[in-house]
């Protein structure tokens, strides 16, 4: 297991380096000049030259790359061209918001997906199953930002149950303030996630329910809830966990648009702003962070398998 982990981590390091390099050059291929963007209406060629020099953007791309890689190895991700804040600071303030939002969306997603998936499987080919499938279909098709706007209009503007925008710190403002600002965006993101998961829960459970050991369990007199909970679910969950991990991408990409709608400055919103501003160090830093999250999430999923299915061992 330890050797396997080390091997995976080394692979991961190369993967992340590849992503970093790709992003470094790709963002510079996109037309648009960060200095022009930053100066805005104050643009004059002289002011642009002065700023370019100040930011080190007058150097060749090669030397910029070498400098960035060197800094990166020392743990320095650089500073934003647009806002001057260090990339590390931006991540430090943005990541907790995105993770909080993702966590709430994840809980909402799983909270919806498991019961409806199980119900749909048990009531296979009844109106309940069809209704669940229809809702799942709508859930997948609905863009998160659109659902978010809808939720704001209904639950904030009309009913006044939840704040329409913003984020509260868990530590400073308390749990209530924190959660009530995350529920609507959490639903906006979690719905699509739930819809996908629910299909897998249903399919996985249907497959295991028809297998021999379930028939055996029933034959030896285990009550139906026990059959489902102890015997069927564990096996049915393996593909679900895989999908949960892979679909973390969906959660994270969902936060990007939804953070815009709910005016939460998580890493998604920072990334969007940085791309619009051609803020090279910020784009590089955040894409790198997202790459790390993905690699680690996939690793975690692989390890989780061993907990769910003792037959799976890594060497």
């Amino acid at each position, binding site marked *: 297991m330890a050797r396997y982990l080390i091997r995976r981590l080394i692979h991961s390091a190369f993967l992340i380096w590849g992503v970093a390099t790709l992003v470094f050059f790709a963002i510079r291929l996109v037309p648009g000049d960060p200095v*022009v*963007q930053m100066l805005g209406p104050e*643009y004059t060629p002289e002011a642009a030259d002065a700023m370019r020099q100040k930011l080190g953007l007058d150097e060749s791309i090669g030397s910029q790359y070498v400098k960035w890689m060197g800094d990166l190895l020392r743990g320095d991700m650089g500073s934003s061209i647009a*806002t001057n804040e260090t990339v590390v600071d931006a991540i430090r303030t943005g990541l907790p918001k995105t993770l909080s939002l993702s966590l709430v969306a994840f809980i909402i997603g799983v909270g919806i997906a498991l019961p409806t998936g199980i119900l749909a499987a048990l009531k296979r080919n009844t109106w309940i199953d069809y209704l669940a499938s229809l809702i799942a279909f709508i859930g997948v098709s609905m863009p998160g930002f659109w659902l978010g706007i809808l939720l704001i209009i209904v639950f904030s*503007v009309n009913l006044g149950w939840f704040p*329409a925008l913003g984020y509260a710190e868990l530590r400073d403002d308390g749990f209530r303030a924190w959660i009530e600002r995350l529920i609507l965006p959490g639903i906006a993101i979690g719905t699509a996630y739930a819809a996908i998961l629910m299909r897998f829960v249903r399919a996985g459970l249907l497959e295991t329910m028809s297998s021999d050991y379930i028939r055996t369990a029933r034959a030896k007199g285990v009550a139906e809830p026990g059959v489902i909970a102890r015997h069927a679910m564990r096996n049915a969950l393996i593909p679900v966990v895989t999908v949960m991990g892979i679909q973390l991408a969906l959660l994270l990409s969902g936060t990007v648009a939804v953070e815009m709608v709910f*005016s939460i400055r998580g890493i998604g919103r920072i990334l969007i702003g940085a791309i619009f501003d051609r803020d090279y160090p910020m784009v590089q830093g955040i894409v790198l962070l997202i790459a790390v999250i993905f690699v680690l999430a996939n690793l975690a999923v692989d390890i989780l398998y061993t907990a769910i299915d003792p037959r799976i061992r890594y060497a």
Partner: protein
Amino acid sequence: MESRHPIDWSVLSGPYVSRRTLMKLAMGTGAAAFAASLQASPKASAASALQEPVTGGTLRLGFLNSQIVTLDPGLLAQGVVAGSILPSLHSSLVQFDTDLGIIPDLAEDWTVSEDGLSYSFTLREGITFHNGDAITSADFQYTFDRTTNPDFASPHANKLASVTDFQTPDERTVTLTLSDPFAPFLAVACTRGPGRALTPVSARAIEEMGDEQFGMTPVGSGPFMIVPETYDVGQGFDMVAFDGWYGGRPYLDTIEVRLVPEPSSAVSGLEAGDLDAIDPVPATSFEQLNSNSDLVVLQQPSTMWRGVVMNYARPPWDNPVARMAVSKAIDRQAFVDTAFFGLATPGIGAIAPAFGWAYVDPATVENPQGYNLDEAKALAEEAGIVGVQPVIISSEEIGQRPTEVLRTALTEIGLDPQVDFQQAATFNERWQSGDFDLFLHGSVVDADPDDGHWNIFHSTGPWNTYGYNSADADALLEATRATSDQAERARLFQELQVVLQTDVAAAFVYHVFDLFAHHADVQGVVGIPEQRYYEKVWLDR
């Protein structure tokens, strides 16, 4: 274009360069249209003068922007932040009144010499920075040196480039000398908000915290102070009343500035009561907010203009007949109705309606490039542009609606325009490098009409990337800078407007309104075009 008669520059002297003065001058010089336009100057909002203002409370302000990069006046390039947020944190030498006339701020009086080259400001007594340090002329010397230091790379250094001498003869006197008369100097370099070049900053605070930190937690001299620990580049910050402001403590205790990048979210936030005011209001939401009895939408003329510029380097757009065909194809009234739901004024030039002292009411003059579809079609035939496929570049800042309305208008004369809608960064690079056939050019937030004219129409203007080059226009532009008498400047801008119309330097199309919305219990909102002063705002709760 040298001045026709001797000009007395000292009319720009303080303590009040106002509508009244300008009106008198206008009457004297017989500029009737100009005087008439001053009558229609912006009004303060419906704040009730009957009630006694109440001190206290927090204003939650939704500011439609994704980030405020810096609050250091010397470095801030975001024009909307300079107009909307900076005036609360930083006082400067002078400030605007509701007609964009100039009135005292930290300087209680000032004089301008008759030749327009020497300015002398007398500072108020007992003015201090937020940290309690007294403000003296030495602080202005420090600010001047800082802004003009090449290593500091201030985007506003160019506004001080013509200053040849800067002196502080005593603690309360600041004098400076220009190499050439520069009429917009007070507005662009000295006003609270836009006049960032000479907005005083605390030397001690900068030495203590460094330039970078100062941008986040500036120590200024405005009616509100930043709460340092609240600053977040993308979320906003809190500002609290500054007891030591020379004008007295503002009524509000706190202003929470919340950055809301998504316009529909800001509108929802205002309706749901999470925000007390939003700045600015997206035109698409105007009706919805205006029909809500809990809300007040303040509608003012703006300092911006937009019009179609055509690239002289790309035939057939070097042909004035082709350009005139385009201009005459655009029905301005229909344009503003369709593209902006009527929340804009049809434009005939680059003089924005907020500059009441120079603005020309379109109804009072003949516009040689105005809408006439039959003539436009004939001109298009004559210029041989039927079937041509010009590339129109555009971006979110211009908006999809105006771009689409323009495209449709041009199809009426047989053009087949190709719209290239880009992200801001790409769009800016393309127009600056001249990579377009035509686009809706213009100015954004200006302190003086100089910004929106010189940059775009002077042959050396930094935003003139489409190749307009007219000796007449250059001479008139130079004359507007060399003349301090605003009535004379108004006349020159108006003369220039006719030249620009005839040359079709741009096919002038519109000026959008400046819109600001707040809850009905927010009182004392002062209507100054594209400037927000919050010290007299109070909450009726």
